[in-house]
């Protein structure tokens, strides 16, 4: 638990625009331990999604060093799974076939993948929906399929870019509880991008608070709430204090 699996030092991202350089990410340094649940929180333009993209190897950084398992990130890697705001299910594949996509791409053992797919569907509460098509499911159910697919090839690190941001408040809360339950069971390293402070505090071990123009890591807040957590925890004073502390760091309260 004490070993850093991901380290970043002096990471910057600069875009060349017609009006000059645009600094999206300015000198960000951090370490993330194996099995940790980290949230990146901040308003639009704080660079949280950019940082996640770079961590996932989808985008290049401009400056600095960024390593996973001691290896420089310069391309996507199979042991890092990514999930986006939209579930991006393929409508021509059944639910089961969608969950099996990573296994097909990575040419994993078919028999093992078959069993794993059923386990995962069970875990996200969708056993019985394997032969359905995405077009027949609700938004919340589709994002559950996305969650199952994220775990299909058993990646070590999960990068989630506002995965429940497009869902309604009730579904989002249910999904957060589900996510925690699954994370408790698997203890994978998670980097979770959100602009919802309460969500970040509820889920995380540590919250990276980011501010915009230029995108900076303002500070890191240790979430010392006990685990396993239930929504009851939101009634506790400590939860409120942490939310308030982050709000102050973001300059929301004056």
């Amino acid at each position, binding site marked *: 638990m004490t070993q850093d699996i991901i380290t970043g030092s002096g990471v910057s991202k600069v875009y060349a625009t017609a009006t000059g350089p645009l600094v999206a990410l300015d000198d960000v340094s951090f370490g993330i331990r194996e099995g940790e649940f980290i949230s990146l929180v901040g308003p639009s333009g704080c660079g949280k999604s950019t940082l996640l993209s770079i961590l*996932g*190897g*989808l985008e290049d950084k401009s400056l600095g060093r960024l390593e996973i398992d001691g290896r420089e990130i310069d*391309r*996507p*890697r*199979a042991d*890092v*799974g*990514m999930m*986006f*705001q*939209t579930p*991006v299910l*393929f*409508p*021509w594949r059944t639910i*089961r076939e969608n969950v099996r*996509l*990573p296994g*097909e*791409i*990575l040419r994993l053992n078919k028999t093992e993948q078959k069993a794993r797919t059923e386990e995962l569907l069970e875990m996200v509460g969708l*056993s*019985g*929906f*394997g*032969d*359905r*098509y*995405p*077009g*027949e*499911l609700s938004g919340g159910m589709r994002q559950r399929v996305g969650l199952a697919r994220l775990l299909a*090839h058993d990646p070590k690190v999960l*990068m989630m870019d506002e995965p429940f941001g497009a869902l309604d408040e009730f579904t989002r809360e249910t999904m957060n509880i589900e996510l925690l339950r699954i994370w408790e069971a698997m203890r994978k390293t998670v980097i979770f991008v959100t602009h919802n402070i309460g969500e970040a505090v509820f889920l995380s071990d540590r919250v990276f608070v980011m501010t915009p123009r230029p995108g900076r890591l303002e500070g890191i807040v240790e979430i010392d709430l006990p685990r396993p957590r239930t929504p009851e925890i939101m009634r506790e004073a400590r939860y409120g204090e942490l939310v308030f502390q982050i709000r102050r760091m973001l300059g929301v309260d004056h």
Partner: protein
Amino acid sequence: MTDTAPIHAPPSDRQGDAIARFMESERRRTRRELWTNRLLALGFGLFVLALWAIATHGGFVHKLIIPTPLATLEAAGRVSAADYFWPNVWVTLQEIFWGFVIGMAAGAFFGILVAMFAPVRATLYPYLVALQAPPKIVLAPIFVTWFGFDMESKIAISVVMCFFPMFLNTLTGLSAVDPNAIKLMRSLTASRWQTFRHLLLPNAAPIMMAGVKLCWTLAVLGVIVGEFVGASAGIGYLIYAMNFQLDIPAVFFLIILLSVFTLIVYQVIEWLEGRVIFWNSL
């Protein structure tokens, strides 16, 4: 496969009967609407036919300009029983088939090439777009000069007519993809081929199928125009010859025959389309 859970919750017992009655009345209403629509369409067709009969039999329009329905029917029997009929139909069918298949395949092939390979796009795209603007029909006389009076020249015209809609629709279809889906494939370290096969191609299928339908009507058009310009056989050639002999009923019959044939194949393609891109109706 028993692995399907109900999507909708069943009605509560208390209201079960009322809901069953409601569903039944809804079913009846939908059926009634369907039949009303069919009758309206059929009625309009009969109305036009009646108008045609009155205008011609009543002597309001000269029969050299528009033949009577009965004369057209008589011509249908006469022409289709003639020795020359089936060989000519066969020629046209072959021309349409090859024009359609080659034009479609070439359009899809170049569409994929231009969409998938940046250097190919940089090299060819400006020219393909520029070539798309002028009407392809102007090539018909040249093609007859180049390829002669036989089938080759008609197939060539048909291929050129088919090529562009298929090319552009393939290109558009392969480009119109959710950026997050691309990111997903990249994050899974998918190869270009895997991305193409698992994401881009099925994603492009609806727009490509629209291209296939466009191709079909243009393939027929290309062949018939080619036969008008210069041919020694084919339905277009027959239409031209009959028109010259002022056998207008025969011309009418051939036009109707061609229209019905084009329409039937079009319907088959639409049926296939529904099969291929089944997920659009989910």
